[in-house]
């Protein structure tokens, strides 16, 4: 009887936590409009999660693009199809690698920082202090961080993709002597703005929401001790990465399933 009861307790705890997270998101979202007169808060958070993540995004984007160029060339050259290298690099970056890898890096670089920051505020009772001063912590602390993530990640993913395409160009045209004109023209005739670019942007908006949601919730819901904060930070990175990869499959099958 006991293992079954354990399992039931575990499942109930999970479901309760999911419900708490959903209510938390709802509570934050209905407060987002209150940020309008206080855009300074939002700017500050976009700096923290966006600008400070820029370096890792740009460097990884460049290398991912360069590796794609190298691997794609070696595969395509066997079929004499190295002219479509540009299309291969651009399609894989805009559809998948740009949004997903940028979201994973974002979860590791910005999401963990968000959780640690909010968790520490809770552990040191700053959140309670703010509430005592009749300032709503959801409006003042959580809402700008959530919104900043939703705004920053699509921009980061776009930068990742653009730098990646340039990296693929660098290797394909500069190193492996694919013709420059063919590289771009094959890419332009094969790519579609709505199918490829716009769907990639939609993906990264969804990932931005989910990663920042998980990050702020884990911080807000953590056990208020130093150990609790460290566990919450770990959980943020693990859960956000899993959520991004799982959601990516669902979004991909919705967007490209029937084509």
């Amino acid at each position, binding site marked *: 009887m006991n293992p079954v009861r354990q399992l039931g307790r575990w499942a109930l705890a999970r479901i309760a936590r999911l419900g708490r997270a959903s209510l938390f998101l709802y509570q934050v979202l209905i407060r987002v409009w209150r940020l309008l007169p206080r855009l*300074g808060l939002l*700017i*500050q958070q*976009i*700096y923290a999660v*966006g*600008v400070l993540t*820029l370096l890792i995004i740009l460097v990884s984007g460049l290398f991912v693009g360069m590796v794609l160029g190298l691997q794609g060339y070696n595969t395509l050259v066997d079929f004499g199809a190295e002219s479509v290298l540009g299309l291969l690099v*651009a399609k894989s970056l*805009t559809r998948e690698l740009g949004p997903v890898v940028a979201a994973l890096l974002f979860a590791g670089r910005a999401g963990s920082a968000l959780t640690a920051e909010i968790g520490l505020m809770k552990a040191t009772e700053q959140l309670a202090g703010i509430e005592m001063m009749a300032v709503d912590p959801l409006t003042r602390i959580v809402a700008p961080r959530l919104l900043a993530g939703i705004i*920053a990640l*699509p*921009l*980061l993913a*776009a*930068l990742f*993709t*653009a*730098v990646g*395409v340039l990296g693929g160009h660098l290797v394909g045209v500069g190193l492996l002597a694919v013709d420059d004109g063919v590289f*771009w023209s094959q*890419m*332009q*005739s094969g*790519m*579609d*703005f709505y199918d*490829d*670019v716009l769907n*990639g*942007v939609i993906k990264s908006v969804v990932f931005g929401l989910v990663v920042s949601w998980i990050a702020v919730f884990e911080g807000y819901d953590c056990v208020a001790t130093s150990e609790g904060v460290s566990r919450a930070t770990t959980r943020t990175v693990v859960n956000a990465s899993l959520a991004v990869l799982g959601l990516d499959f669902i979004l991909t099958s919705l967007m490209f399933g029937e084509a």
Partner: protein
Amino acid sequence: MAKQTTLELWVGVFGVAGLLALSMLAFKVANLSASDVRQGYRVAARFDNIGQLKLRAPITLAGVRIGRVSDITIDDDFYAVVTLTISGKYAKLPLDTSASILTSGLLGEQYVALEPGGDDEYLKDGSELQITQSALVLEKLISQVLYGKAESGN
């Protein structure tokens, strides 16, 4: 205050860079400016067999892309009806323009090639192309050659 200003500056730079990257993806990578088929006119063409022709396949005239395939259906007599959306820039195509489905390269995708005729009137939204040539289906071609050989007694 000075710190807040540099911070705002950086966020501004970040936003501009992100939007620049997006517009590069839109215009340089996906060539959005050239694919303005949404403001084109639609012409129907009936084929016996369209082979592997797909939605959004290019329509070319003299090798220049002038539109895209926007719809593929079947009519009551089991002909494939392909709707060609041609960019409004190329409005002066003669009424007896013919359409054929060709393949780019040996294994490439299929596209619709238009061949202008000599009519004085022009195609307009809703017209139908009268002269069409179906796609070449490789398997049929091979079986025709094989049967031909068998009949001629090797």
